[in-house]
């Protein structure tokens, strides 16, 4: 069968990234459901997200000036940066002191599966794009496997890590949707 066009690959990838971000949003809501309103307004941020050193555009003008290969490189770097921390979230979810612990744990598994399948798809996609798309920045996670001893610090650190993932999954989704619309130039009704 003929090679799958890039526009189709990008369409599939952005559907997966959309799902990935939506999942992280419902997970955040599941977590929030346990905190009193005041606690939810300003949740402490123990540190910066481990991916914050990666320079990404932070408004439309900047984003639309980034080349296709650089956008895909950003996406792959962000996704890869979450391989280890998602394992930490997964193992921590099993003992999370939260009434919705099992729901949260299942959804983290789902996150891992979607993240893995998106990553696999992007390997194929980047092979079809300019060499720059192969570049992946290393964003190591130094947080370790332990997210805290006492109940409150476990919840705060888990919530913080998830908020970082939620933000990065939104970036991944946004960049893939820009790429999708650029690839869909011949199909204006797509965008």
């Amino acid at each position: 069968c003929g090679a799958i066009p890039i526009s189709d690959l990008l369409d599939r990838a952005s559907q997966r990234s959309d799902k990935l971000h939506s999942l992280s949003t419902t997970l955040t809501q599941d977590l929030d459901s346990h905190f009193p309103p005041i606690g939810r307004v300003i949740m402490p941020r123990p540190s910066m997200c481990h991916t914050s050193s990666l320079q990404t555009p932070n408004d439309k003008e900047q984003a639309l000036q980034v080349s296709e290969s650089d956008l895909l490189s950003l996406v792959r770097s962000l996704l890869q940066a979450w391989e280890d921390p998602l394992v930490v979230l997964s193992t921590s979810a099993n003992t999370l002191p939260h009434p919705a612990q099992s729901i949260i744990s299942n959804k983290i598994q789902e996150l891992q599966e979607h993240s893995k399948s998106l990553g696999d798809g992007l390997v194929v996609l980047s092979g079809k794009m300019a060499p720059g798309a192969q570049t992946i920045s290393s964003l190591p996670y130094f947080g370790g496997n332990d997210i805290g001893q006492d109940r409150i610090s476990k919840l705060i650190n888990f919530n913080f890590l998830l908020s970082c993932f939620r933000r990065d999954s939104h970036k991944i989704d946004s960049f893939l949707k820009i790429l999708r619309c650029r690839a869909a130039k011949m199909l204006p009704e797509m965008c």
Partner: protein
Amino acid sequence: VLFPPAKPGLTSCRSPEKETFTCWWKPGSDGGLPTTHALYYRKESSETVYECPDYHTAGENSCFFNKNDTSIWVNYNITVVATNALGRAFSDPVEIDVVYIVKPNPPEKVTVTVMEDKGWPFLRVSWEPPHKADTRSGWITLIYELRVKLEEEIDWEMHLAGQQKMFNIFSLRSGGKYLVEVRCKPDHGFWSEWSSTSYIKVPDYFHREK
């Protein structure tokens, strides 16, 4: 008797297109004295406090952040301060990221026409995205929903149209007068308000009822 002002409350922050945003607040009681309000914000990982760049564009008790003042994927920590001669009162701080407060304007140029297929009428509804939302570049991805009903009925019939900007509605009542409205939502945000109502009358030369 005169008092310091009561605590104001930040009521909501919204972005119509992920490029600008506005916040609104509700003043508390003014304690019987002339009272002013100011909005201050700080961006994540920065200690610099800024004041609202524009108190006017979005009307009373509001602060508008234009494209240059708006960054996404960064938390804004926002507080409103009420001040009169006897003192000040601070709102509870609220933290927002513009990507999570997107509520577009309604779809535009909603057009409804009666079409015919093998003798059966159907409605073709088409629309445009709100002009402020840049869907063409992919910066914002909108999905749409329609609702349609006969003039005399109460309940609407809902249709999700996905990203399409055109939708056909079948099973019409011969001679019926229909109302149609459309709304939109970003992939990760809030539904817009419904568009203004479009009216259409289906000719009554078809004999069979719905």
